[in-house]
């Protein structure tokens, strides 16, 4: 177990390194000059040069990358004009556009994204797996068809339309909830939950069809297996047979997919975040990409990468726990 975790840790570091290299590489393919963008549209050539110098963009790519790595291990210094600021290790550098420390920028925004991702995951698991189960139980019935149509509508509708519809319905038309504004969990857990409700629903609904279909098919798959017959033959009710035994077969793929989606939602729920004004890292990422703010992009991608890797380790552990036949090592 320890060995396994150590191994995965090594893998994670590798993944993150590759990620950062890829981003650095892509960055030099992407159009636009970050120094000019940071300086402003009407900056003179000298000013842009000064800014470039100040951002350390004058160095060759590999030197910049080395600085970046050194920053993670040993920290970096940065001038605000009046003073030298120190950014402690692990330092992901400073945003070109806002001068903020990327580490603190991400740390500030992580809770919001985590809130969104975790809550949405609960929703898509509940709605998705629940729907999948129900539709496996009541195959061919009205319930199944209605549920299928509902989840499919969620998936077939882009998030920006789904979210806007929910907003219009719940906040503007019915006025059940005020328009959501993000309240940190630490400030007021209750308000946090109320305000996150719509974003969770939006993202959760959008993802849930995938889980519904997956659960349904895996459940049906398992229902066809011999051991199900055993439990039926012992008078175990259909509900328990499906819920306990057939569902169990659906657990591994659902776990595998959840890990994946959790990872990508961590970095990519941009549309939901901007629609509901959640100060998460997804928005930073898209802004970073638009403004060629390399440190922010690298930072966010590394955090996302970490989320992906961690989610996968957790998924693999859960998976091995769920299916003991699969060996970890």
């Amino acid at each position, binding site marked *: 177990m320890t060995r396994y975790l150590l191994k995965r840790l090594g893998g994670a570091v590798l993944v993150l390194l590759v990620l950062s290299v890829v981003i650095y590489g*892509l960055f030099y393919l992407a159009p636009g000059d970050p120094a000019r963008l940071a300086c402003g549209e009407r900056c003179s050539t000298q000013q842009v040069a000064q800014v470039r110098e100040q951002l350390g963009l004058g160095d060759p790519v590999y030197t910049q990358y080395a600085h970046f790595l050194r920053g993670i291990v040993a920290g970096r210094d940065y001038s605000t004009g009046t003073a030298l600021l120190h950014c402690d290790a692990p330092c992901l550098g400073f945003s070109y556009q806002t001068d903020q420390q990327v580490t603190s920028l991400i740390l500030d925004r992580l809770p919001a994204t985590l809130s969104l991702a975790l809550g949405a995951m609960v929703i898509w698991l509940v709605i998705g797996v629940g729907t999948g189960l129900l539709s496996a139980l009541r195959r*061919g019935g009205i319930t199944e068809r209605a549920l299928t149509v509902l989840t*499919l509508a969620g998936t*077939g509708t882009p998030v*920006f*339309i789904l979210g806007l519809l929910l907003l219009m319905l719940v906040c503007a038309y019915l006025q059940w909830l005020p328009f959501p504004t993000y309240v940190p969990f630490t400030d007021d857990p209750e308000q946090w939950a109320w305000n996150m409700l719509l974003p969770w629903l939006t993202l959760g609904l959008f993802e849930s069809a995938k889980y519904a279909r997956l659960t349904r098919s895996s459940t049906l798959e398992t229902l066809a297996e011999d051991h199900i017959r055993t439990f039926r033959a012992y008078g175990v009710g259909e509900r328990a047979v499906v819920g306990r035994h057939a569902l169990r077969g659906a657990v591994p793929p659902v776990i595998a997919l959840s890990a994946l989606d959790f990872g990508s939602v961590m970095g*990519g729920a941009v549309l939901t975040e901007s629609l509901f004004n959640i100060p998460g890292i997804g928005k930073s990422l898209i802004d970073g990409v638009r403004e060629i703010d390399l440190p922010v992009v690298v930072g966010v991608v590394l955090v996302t990468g970490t989320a*992906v*890797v961690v989610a*996968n380790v957790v998924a693999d552990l859960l998976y091995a726990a769920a299916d003991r036949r699969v060996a970890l090592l």
Partner: protein
Amino acid sequence: MTTLPDLPASGAKAGAAVAVPAASDARQAWRRLRGRRSAVVAAGVLGLLVVLALAAPLLAAVEGQDANTYHDALVDSARGGVPIGSFGGVSGDHWLGVEPGTGRDLFVRLLYGARVSLLVAAGATVVQVLIGVAVGLASGLGNRLLDAVLSRFTDVMIALPMLVLAIALTAVVPNDFPRPLLLILVIGLLDWGGTSRIVRAQTLTLKQLDFVAAARLAGSGRWRVARRELLPSLAAPVITYAAILLPMNMVLEASLSFLGVGVKPPTPSWGQMLSSAQTWFRADPMYVLLPAGLLFVTVLAFTVLGDAVRAALDPREAGRLRVGRRRTSRTPAAADPSKDISS
């Protein structure tokens, strides 16, 4: 690997030679599929959509419109360009009304949009599934090193935000590179992590089973085991997942249009129409409902078909075809309730 006989062809030949036709597994699955009414209906709907898309120029000629001509007189410029007339400007000339702001004919645009949407979504899904299955299988079947390398590679791909790559790509890809192909490649090459994860997970479980051991003993190499033993069992989750990837790809195509990797204007696509219709759903509901409705029908048809294919691939399901209507079936036994002990 020595030459591998082709699966469907084998059935045909064998059938000719031997007294009792020995249909291949694929053939039998096909037969089961055809027996499902839902599958036939779904396939019919999809077929119709494809035909409509292919016949777009023809139908446009019938209506007497084309996809790109502006009709400034048909929109109310003072009110944001909303189509004049009810139901988004439906008229004898414009059967489904016109697009706000431009007055372009919606009927024709929807038809042409179907081409791009179906092509991109289906193409991207195929690429995703091919890569995902290949990587997942190799990862699940390969030795630990290969598994580790591929899994970490998958991690990298998942963690790479698609939009970063998409933007970098626009800078590199020449302007005249066919956009639908670019979209297929961008989505297909970047977003296969889910498929690969599912396939790997299933492979790990399946490969513990005796029938895989038996196949290994039969001299099947990993590739053969994968193809003959695992793929049929993987087909169910993969097909189900693909049926859901497809609509997601249609939606993704819309988002990529925003980033400039989408189809080039004035070429329409449902996703693009939907994203520009975003704000119109109160002022001109038709504009939203048409692409959304088509998208939904497509999604539904693909899902139903995916379900049917999944079931058809499972021989054990054959006997359970009509569970929902079991009670009303008129088997001889059912006619006499006292004799029927199966319901």
